[in-house]
């Protein structure tokens, strides 16, 4: 039939049918009102909205010319996850850095995806927040539509497709864990969209410190308390040995039908004040 549509911002379910009834049928299936758009408008409106890569090209060009990029909030981070006998335990530190400065001493890095699925995020804080929020929304609509509990692989696939579509520009490295009808699952997702499925995982700048702990102490069939203790150890290893990680430990334990979000489970870095009366400085100092 060859319908030349340059206003591709309709949601039309088209089917390749032959004959004239097709044209009528195609139009009847069209959901959006038909607008006559001027050429300028069409150029500006994208098929799906969202990211335009034009700025990325300009930014790269500026970088090549020597312009220093503005610093943004990164989570130099330690995030970990492990599978124990009843489910999944996720852990994260709580320091958010902006270059060499600690921007947030107690931020939340374990994000809600679904009642039975949580996701730790490392990388650019805004990216991890936005991407987990978006996919969490998607999963919610999917749950309403199918009347079923969300599966971890669904969250995984939505996240990796999203990250792949943005070709690594969305700087989010994630540890996704949850328990669904098929059992406990733990995955890592890299900013370019590749994934791993593992019994224990670490990500972020403190990942090596935490992985050292896991590699020496992890075994299958851990109990809940053993698992929580091991995760705490791994995060603490990241907190004390990596500059990008610090402050407190957040834990999330997910089992079949239940989840426990233990915010600030461990506070190994309490503020200690020298003098409760405060300081007094003499003049001209």
């Amino acid at each position, binding site marked *: 039939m060859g319908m030349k549509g340059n206003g591709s911002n309709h949601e039309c379910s088209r089917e390749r049918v032959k004959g004239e009834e097709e044209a009528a049928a195609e139009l009847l299936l*069209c959901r959006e009102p038909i607008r006559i758009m001027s050429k300028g408008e069409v150029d500006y409106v994208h098929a799906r909205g969202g990211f335009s890569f034009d700025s990325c090209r300009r930014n790269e060009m500026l970088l090549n010319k020597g312009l220093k990029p503005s610093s943004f909030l990164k989570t130099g981070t330690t995030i970990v996850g492990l599978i124990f006998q009843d489910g999944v335990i996720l852990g994260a530190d709580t320091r958010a850095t902006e270059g060499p400065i600690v921007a947030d001493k107690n931020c939340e890095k374990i994000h809600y995806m679904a009642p039975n699925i949580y996701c730790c995020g490392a990388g650019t804080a805004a990216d991890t927040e936005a991407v987990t929020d978006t996919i969490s929304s998607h999963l919610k609509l999917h749950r309403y*539509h199918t009347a079923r509990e969300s599966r971890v692989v669904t969250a995984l696939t939505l996240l990796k497709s999203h990250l792949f579509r943005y070709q690594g520009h969305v700087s989010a490295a994630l540890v996704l864990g949850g328990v669904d009808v098929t059992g406990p699952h733990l995955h890592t997702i890299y900013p370019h969209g590749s994934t791993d499925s593992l019994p224990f995982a670490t990500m972020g700048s403190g990942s090596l410190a935490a992985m050292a702990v896991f590699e020496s102490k992890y075994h299958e069939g851990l109990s809940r308390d053993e698992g929580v203790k091991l995760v705490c150890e791994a995060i603490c290893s990241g907190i004390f040995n990596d500059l990008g990680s610090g402050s407190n430990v957040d834990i999330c334990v997910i089992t079949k039908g239940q989840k426990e979000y233990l915010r600030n489970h461990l506070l190994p870095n309490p503020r200690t004040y020298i003098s409760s009366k405060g300081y007094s400085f003499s003049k001209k100092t």
Partner: protein
Amino acid sequence: MGDSQYSFSLTTFSPSGKLVQIEHALTAVGSGQTSLGIKAANGVVIATEKKLPSILVDETSVQKIQILTPNIGVVYSGMGPDSRVLVRKSRKQAEQYQRLYKEPIPVTQLVRETAAVMQEFTQSGGVRPFGVSLLVAGYDDKGPQLYQVDPSGSYFSWKASAMGKNVSNAKAFLEKRYTDDMEIDDAVHTAILTLKEGVLTPAEIEDYLQEVE
């Protein structure tokens, strides 16, 4: 899509100023199964008769009352497939609102957006109006609310309302039985009794009343 032969609206005015397609849509609603809603002091009840075309139909697969958000539900009278489309759109809009404002969507907002969708389909090219009326029941910080949305896109807030077949009987019954200070259990009871008026058989009523007690 601009260069097609059907970019005109199929819903056009009649000489007397009526939109005949919408009138017909309301007729479709009026021949659908009865559904009703009652606003109590501490909640809202929506009910409908789930009449299946044969005993062979798997009744668990038929869902006439649907959830839009954790605190808003909807029931319809009229064409089931049309209601599915609206439910899907409403859920998406509720979710978008939540994502934008980080607040659960108020009932009035959701009703307004659903009504806007229904109105769009009375003024667009190549589409027909929806053949359903919806009863949206929700509980937000303004308390319990009950709205009816018509194929034209107009919406009304009701204390108690009915749609579909037997609507005049049902409404008359509701007018008699409704009180402002009803509790939710009374409302459930009243809803079942209203449906009984010409809709359910005495044996079915007995079953339901037993369940409620």
